[in-house]
């Protein structure tokens, strides 16, 4: 099936006459600026505060930059092995959790979306039900189980725990993404003799790449930011960034500068990764390429 307009026309025409299009552009950019402001301004404040010494962070009236602003907090951070170790821990755990979650959720999503089998609704209920108990009430029995398995204060223990937290979302969303892809694709491939696995990995997966990567991004964020189980399941050998951040909140004083600096420094690599790689999954590369 070909498009309704010829290639030449498509290049130069977009829905709508010229003047409203310029208006649309103006309002869109305005909307984006407001959205970006909403998202970024508090973080910008955090960054500016991370440059100030503690006594100036809480000054009123608040000032953007002071005479004492400097990157001293960041250089202190990069010389502190404990904080650098926490980067290592967080990225290691986040990466492992993301890879495993994607693999497992693609498989599970495919079967829940495409196959009909006895117990299917029960499985769906289990998948969602697993995360229906508030984690705070699960902490002690869960910790007991982890201890019995010998996984207390270990990477494996925390990775497995994060997997349990990320699977439900990943499976539900992967199912939803597969649901949006027409079954005609499957059927066409099956007539050609492809097996389920083949259909999944060679046909459906490439098209659903935006969904897969968005699930991957979310999974990484979830693991990166997770606090409760990182606190309870580890003591010494594994210390993730959120725990390190909490260590700056003391009984007698809060080291705001160090806390803000660690948060910003920790998120910069993730941000850069997103900036660079987003066009591979959100840049419209795959948009509309297989319809019809």
């Amino acid at each position: 099936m070909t498009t309704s307009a010829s290639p030449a026309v498509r290049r130069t025409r977009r829905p709508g006459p010229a003047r409203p299009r310029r208006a649309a552009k103006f309002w869109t950019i305005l909307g984006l600026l407001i959205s970006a402001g909403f998202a970024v301004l508090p973080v910008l404040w955090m960054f500016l505060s991370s440059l100030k010494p503690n006594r100036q962070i809480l000054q009123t009236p608040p000032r953007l930059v002071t005479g004492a602003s400097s990157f001293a907090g960041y250089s202190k951070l990069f010389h502190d092995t404990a904080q650098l170790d926490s980067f290592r821990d967080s990225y290691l755990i986040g990466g492992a959790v993301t890879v495993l979650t994607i693999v497992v959720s693609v498989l599970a999503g495919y079967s829940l979306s495409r196959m009909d089998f006895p117990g299917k609704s029960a499985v769906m209920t289990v998948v969602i039900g697993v995360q229906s108990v508030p984690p705070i009430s699960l902490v002690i029995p869960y910790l007991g189980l982890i201890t019995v398995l010998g996984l207390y204060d270990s990477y494996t223990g925390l990775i497995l725990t994060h997997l349990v937290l990320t699977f439900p979302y990943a499976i539900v969303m992967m199912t939803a993404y597969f649901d949006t892809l027409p079954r005609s694709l499957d059927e066409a491939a099956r007539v050609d003799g492809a097996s389920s696995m083949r259909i999944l990995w060679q046909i459906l997966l490439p098209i659903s790449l935006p969904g897969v990567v968005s699930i991957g991004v979310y999974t990484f964020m979830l693991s990166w930011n997770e606090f409760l189980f990182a606190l309870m399941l580890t003591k010494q050998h594994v210390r993730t960034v959120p725990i390190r951040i909490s260590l700056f909140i003391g009984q007698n004083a809060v080291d705001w500068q160090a806390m803000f600096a660690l948060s910003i420094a920790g998120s910069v690599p993730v941000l850069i990764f997103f900036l660079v790689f987003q066009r591979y999954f959100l840049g419209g590369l795959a948009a509309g390429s297989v319809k019809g």
Partner: protein
Amino acid sequence: MTQLTARRPAVGSPRTVPTRGRFRRGRRALIAYSFLSPALLLMIGLMFVPIGTVIYYSFLNYAIVNRPGRPHHLVGWTNYQQVLSDPLFTSSLWHTVAFSVLSVLCHLLLGLAFALLLNSQVIGRVAKGIFRTLIIIPWLFTITIVVALWRYLLLDPHGVVNFILHSLGLPTQGLAWLGQTNTALAAIIFVNVWAGYPFFMISLLAGLQGVSDELREAAWVDGANAFERFWYVTRPHLRPIIVSMSILDLIWNLQNFATIFLLTGGGPANSTNVIANYTYTTAYFDQDYTAAAASAVIILLISLVLAVAYGWSRRAMSR
């Protein structure tokens, strides 16, 4: 792509096995379960015991603490009666519903709005990339920092937010957003929305990639305006994603503990107490782990109702 001549189905395709009967259904079930096995094994393996333990605790007289000389025994529904007759629990139920529903609504609306803006065809790719990155920034920070940052911005009567509002001429000097009963709930919903909308946005953006440009253009050719294009072309395509995410977000916000506890601890004067906070204080302050377990099970039941509703809606949508 499709063959014009009929040919014998290749070895390995489902056509070589009997096309009806239990055998085929059983085989299909086997394939399905093998795809599901890693996930199910892990989730059931790690969660079955803890969830079962919590349910068990909710029927005990006491748990976790030591009461030498007092044997454990089942007490039936006593813990549930205690929890359900506690006015603090009932009020926290209302707060939880308000908090969750409003948070999910705002997450959805903001996420959808931002996703539509970012998906717009009238801006260039580079600009899109930059804005996309900026708008997901709230996602990058752990709850400890989000709370610390917003407490610092909102709480101090002379803090940044009040300073800006005052400079704009609004009479809000001395307003402690988190410390007054009439503003605290709105303030924590605001912080929760700020920290959580990127989740919706990214998922919707990914879903929008699949909306056919041809369909949209065909709609324009037919005379539909932007809103109608959205409502009749885009929205139906996004529906499975919107429904799934809303249910999940609702369940998550029902259990939201850290955000609220760290921001207000359930105060002031219990105006922001939610069930998860109630569960926590019953366990860790009051050392009454069995009543806490009962309230946790109540949340579990509510969430399961939502999960079952989700399953029905999925089946209805695919009919």
